[in-house]
């Protein structure tokens, strides 16, 4: 192979030679980037500020982050492995997402670094156009992959956070509360999707059994919209509760939901509905045989 490359040093010499060539060029490139680290990094930080990216961070912070991104960038160029960079991108995202840094900013700064480095390569090799071309051939794919890795890492981190929050909302939003002996309240807030509806029903049925509930008030004041699927699920919940011997009262149907339900023709004739939560609780107390009176009415008249 070595003989071949000596005999025919043209680019058509074959892939291994080219790879070797690329590796050598990348080494040269890395050496150049190391040498001009201070100056390039400052130039980069300046351009980030000028482009008004990362406005949520102070200049000192930007510079500190820029330094580590720069070093990781050069290292990824040198080693050709992206695991360290990936880990760093995840770590960086974890730190900056809570501060409100947007996707376009992260992509923007990585692309800026790519530009800054490319310019410095132009400046260094502008006299030897052939060499510049070969250097860029080696640099561009690696740089693009780095930009890709960082952007993907950021987006993945964001998605992970979104999933985590969805999970948290799901768990937070389905409390079944006992307000009196044998009276449960289930306030539903937010959007009901089929999965959540199912979870709500299961939780409610289990609570009916463990608390030996006789009446359940489901309050949907906090539900903004309802479609026929959710409405039917609600009807099913009411019927399943009845099979366990509990009466369900639904309260807080908004005007919009009332209109939707009647317009789409969901049959709610089996469902007891009361205007608001207070009315629902009063009705439930009546069913359970409670009567709530002001204290003075109970005091003996003098």
């Amino acid at each position: 192979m070595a003989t071949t490359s000596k005999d025919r040093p043209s680019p058509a010499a074959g892939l291994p030679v080219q790879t070797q060539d690329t590796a050598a060029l990348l080494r040269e490139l890395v050496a150049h980037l190391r040498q001009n680290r201070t100056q390039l990094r400052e130039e980069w930080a300046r351009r980030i500020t000028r482009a008004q990216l990362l406005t949520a961070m102070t200049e000192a912070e930007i510079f500190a982050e820029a330094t580590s991104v720069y070093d990781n960038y050069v290292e990824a160029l040198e080693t050709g492995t992206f695991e360290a960079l990936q880990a760093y991108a995840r770590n960086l995202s974890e730190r900056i997402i809570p501060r409100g840094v947007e996707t376009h900013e992260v992509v923007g700064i990585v692309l800026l670094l790519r530009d800054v480095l490319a310019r410095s390569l132009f400046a260094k090799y502008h006299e030897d156009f052939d060499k510049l071309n070969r250097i860029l051939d080696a640099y561009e794919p690696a740089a693009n992959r780095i930009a890709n890795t960082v952007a993907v890492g950021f987006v993945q981190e964001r998605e992970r956070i979104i999933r985590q929050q969805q999970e948290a909302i799901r768990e937070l939003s389905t409390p079944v509360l006992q307000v009196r002996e044998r009276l449960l309240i289930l306030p539903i807030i937010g959007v009901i999707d089929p999965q959540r509806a199912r979870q709500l029903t299961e939780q409610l049925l289990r609570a009916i059994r463990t608390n030996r509930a006789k009446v359940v008030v489901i309050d949907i004041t906090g539900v903004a919209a309802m479609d026929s699927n959710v409405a039917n699920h609600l009807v099913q919940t009411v019927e399943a509760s009845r099979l366990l011997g509990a009466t369900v009262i639904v309260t807080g149907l908004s005007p919009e939901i009332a209109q939707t339900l009647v317009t789409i023709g969901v049959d709610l004739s089996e469902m007891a509905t009361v205007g608001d939560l207070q009315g629902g609780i009063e009705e439930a107390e009546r069913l359970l045989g409670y009567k709530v009176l002001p204290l003075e009415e109970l005091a003996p008249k003098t």
Partner: protein
Amino acid sequence: MEVPILTQGQYLIASIQSALTDADLSQLREALIERVGRFRARGVIVDVTALDVMDSFAVRTLRDIAHMARLRGAETVIVGIQPEVAFAMVQLGLTLKGVATALDLEEGLTFLDGVARERVERGQGPFDRGPGHRDRA
């Protein structure tokens, strides 16, 4: 397997112990309807706590028991439906419409006592079905 039927005062209690075949269910229905007359029962409780599946035939038989017992003068209440069973039932559209249900045996007894009391308060016999009577949904 035959389902044991106990008498407790004016009530009959059928406690299902294990999964039943269709023949067992039919047999239970016949035995209950016959005994309602023999023991002059005023209420029937069917305890299904032990069942973790309820198919359409079982649900229909329970509904039939309730309706037939009513014709013979006894109110029926189904008790002990498990949460998972209840959920599966409504998804299959098996909702035991017009049949009373209660959480467990104790609740079932309370329910039947309440029905009897209500009727006495209305000036009827404990289990007479006067005009204006509405089935408890």
